[in-house]
């Protein structure tokens, strides 16, 4: 072999334009760091959120313009951009953008190192996007770790707060434990199939045998794959805060600062679900797997729906309530995931592909909806300082009618069922439950509806507290205290308000026209914006 050929054999097959969003993010993150290191005075550090924010916006633009080949493998078969992952990535970016917008108030008041704060937010977005787009388990795992590590640090970044430190510690220990399960699962799957690329795993499962180095083939071991998936799923359940692996969620939500909670509640879940959907799509064509995994995922979904909703009922702290509510909401999505696994047993061919597409769309719609709803709820709580005890919300409508209305919209949407006008929460649940009933999971769907009714108690309890309870001295003091503690800059406040207004608008827009979401996906697919 000549030297030139030798060199050429070592050049990876990556088109720079294909990985444009990743490059934009990395450059942005490093710019944040350098900007922080170069600026001596506090004044110039105030520009940091703009650097981070424009990075995120530029990434969204580069995702929209569609540099990446659509639904085809690229960058050494490591990534694949389909509707789910592109829409998910954009939503991740938006959630992180909200965190950046909320940031300046937190940074200035709590004396947080701003350079690291914004850099880590960009890295959360980077990890989430990489995970959502990845077609390869190692990449997904490392991306997950990038995202998780950033989130652990962001949780405990307010080092004067002992609650934050406690939360960060719990999150870190349990998260690291979950990662161990995850990587062990990946190891088993690799051991059984000799590859970590999802499309190759699917191919191996289709053949039923593994190609060996010397040209021979060995039979596939079903146990390895099933154990691998089970371990991987357990790890992902930790990250998704699905019961019974949700124990960290309430403490972390309560202890962490609200911008971080927004990201934990939304970005990490979107990324994890995107990955799960891709893995399940690769594995599910194998009927033996589908049988077992349906029970596993179904069990977790069931427990999450029940436990999350019952747990939320007894909470008096707003953020803890949101934590349990997130457990329940993720449970509904896990239900759809289970249907996705079970599908190949019921349908075949083009019908199967169409049905899978429909379920994936239902999940992504619900994910986007959940992001918007929880961002709205948490953002308003942040604005009015209502992140603590819910007694502070008594008679909020008399003091701050706009905030109370916005919060009410978020709560109605989170309940989802049977309330007019149709909100995104309603449409999301409608599609999810419809899919479940359509493919003969009526009992689970019924349980989901019942638990949704239970959820109405605590969501609407907050609405009742805001609108129908007398304002008391104590409540005002409570909110005032919180507000004093988390007092924030006017500009950041104004931008957050704008973001909240657009969230409210989105709830109704997507509620009335859920398909408009997929218009964006179609536009990207057609290269319309290029």
């Amino acid at each position: 072999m000549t030297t030139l050929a030798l060199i050429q054999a070592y050049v990876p097959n990556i088109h720079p334009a294909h990985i444009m969003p990743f490059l934009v993010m990395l450059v942005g993150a490093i710019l944040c760091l350098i900007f922080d290191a170069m600026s001596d005075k506090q004044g110039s550090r105030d520009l940091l959120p703009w650097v981070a924010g424009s990075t995120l916006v530029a990434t969204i633009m580069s995702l929209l313009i569609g540099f990446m080949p659509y639904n085809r493998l690229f960058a050494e078969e490591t990534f694949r951009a389909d509707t789910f992952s592109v829409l998910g990535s954009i939503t991740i970016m938006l959630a992180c953008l909200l965190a950046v917008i909320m940031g300046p108030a937190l940074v200035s008041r709590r004396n947080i190192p701003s350079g690291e704060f914004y850099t880590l937010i960009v890295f959360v977005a980077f990890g989430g996007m990489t995970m959502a787009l990845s077609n390869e388990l190692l990449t997904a795992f490392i991306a997950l770790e990038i995202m998780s590590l950033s989130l652990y640090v962001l949780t405990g970044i307010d080092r004067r707060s002992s609650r934050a430190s406690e939360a960060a510690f719990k999150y870190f220990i349990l998260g690291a434990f979950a990662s161990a399960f995850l990587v062990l699962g990946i190891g088993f799957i690799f051991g059984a199939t000799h590859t970590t690329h999802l499309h190759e795993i699917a191919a191996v499962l289709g053949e039923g045998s593994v190609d060996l180095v010397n040209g021979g083939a060995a039979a596939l071991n079903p146990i390895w794959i099933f154990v691998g998936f089970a371990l991987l799923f357990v790890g992902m359940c930790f990250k998704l805060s699905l019961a019974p692996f949700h124990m960290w969620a309430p403490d972390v939500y309560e202890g962490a600062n609200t911008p971080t909670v927004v990201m934990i509640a939304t970005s990490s879940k979107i990324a994890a679900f995107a990955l799960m959907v891709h893995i399940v799509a690769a594995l599910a064509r194998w009927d033996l797997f589908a049988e077992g995994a349906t029970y596993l995922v179904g069990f977790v979904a069931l427990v999450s729906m029940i436990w999350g909703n019952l747990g939320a009922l007894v909470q008096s702290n707003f953020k803890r309530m949101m934590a349990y509510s997130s457990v329940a909401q993720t449970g509904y999505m896990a239900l759809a995931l289970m249907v996705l696994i079970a599908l190949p047993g019921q349908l075949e061919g083009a019908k199967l592909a169409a049905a899978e597409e429909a379920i994936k769309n239902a999940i992504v719609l619900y994910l986007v909806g959940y992001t918007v709803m929880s961002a709205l709820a948490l953002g308003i709580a942040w604005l009015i300082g209502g992140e603590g005890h819910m007694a502070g919300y008594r008679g909020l409508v008399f003091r701050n009618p706009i905030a109370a209305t916005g919060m009410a919209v978020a709560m109605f949407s989170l309940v989802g069922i049977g309330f007019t006008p149709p909100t995104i929460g309603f449409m999301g649940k409608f599609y999810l439950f419809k899919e479940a009933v359509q493919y003969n999971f009526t009992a689970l769907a019924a349980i989901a509806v019942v638990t949704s009714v239970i959820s109405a108690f605590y969501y609407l309890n907050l609405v009742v507290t805001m609108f129908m309870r007398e304002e008391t001295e104590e409540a005002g003091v409570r909110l005032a205290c919180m507000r004093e503690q988390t007092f924030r800059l006017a500009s950041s406040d104004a931008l957050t308000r704008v973001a909240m207004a657009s969230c409210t608008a989105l709830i109704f827009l997507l509620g009335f026209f859920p398909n408009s979401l997929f218009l964006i996906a179609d536009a990207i697919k057609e290269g319309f914006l290029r």
Partner: protein
Amino acid sequence: MELIIYYTLFAITVGFALGVLLNKNTVKSAMSLVGVMICLAANFLLMRQEFVAFIQIIVYAGAIMVLFLFVIMLLNLRERETTPWYLRSTRFWGGALGLTFFFVMAWGLQVFSAGTTEPAMAAVQADLAARNTPEITVLSTKMITHYIVPFLLTSVLLLVAVIGAIVMARRQDEDGNEILVEDEVA
């Protein structure tokens, strides 16, 4: 011959692993973990993966576990903390879960070997033998071509870890202002 070495190694590895769990002395626990790491490296050697084996020793036994020991000694954890009552049962449940996992694995292996025909087993063994060639070139070529993305992402992960470590370990005064080393010296 290899089988004898394998079983001996297996026994030693399990012994060390039990040592990690059962030793009340944290330093001895950590040393047992070092033993486990070295035994794992020996296992890799048995599979003729020299590169992985020595990287395993360099990274785990040579760097990470030394840091473990370093921290343990700095904290000087000689006394065992008493276990609160609600954690006492975890030992039982953890043991039960671990045993369950072990039996599932054993069952899987059993099913696998029972369901495999002789030629297939021969193919697996031939596969192992075919790996007898120097693996470093194969490994590195894979790493900078087919697996280039995870390889590069690792550097991003390390960057995040460094940022996180700095944020978490930076010393602060009571108001949360960071203390710079330069300020202290100048």
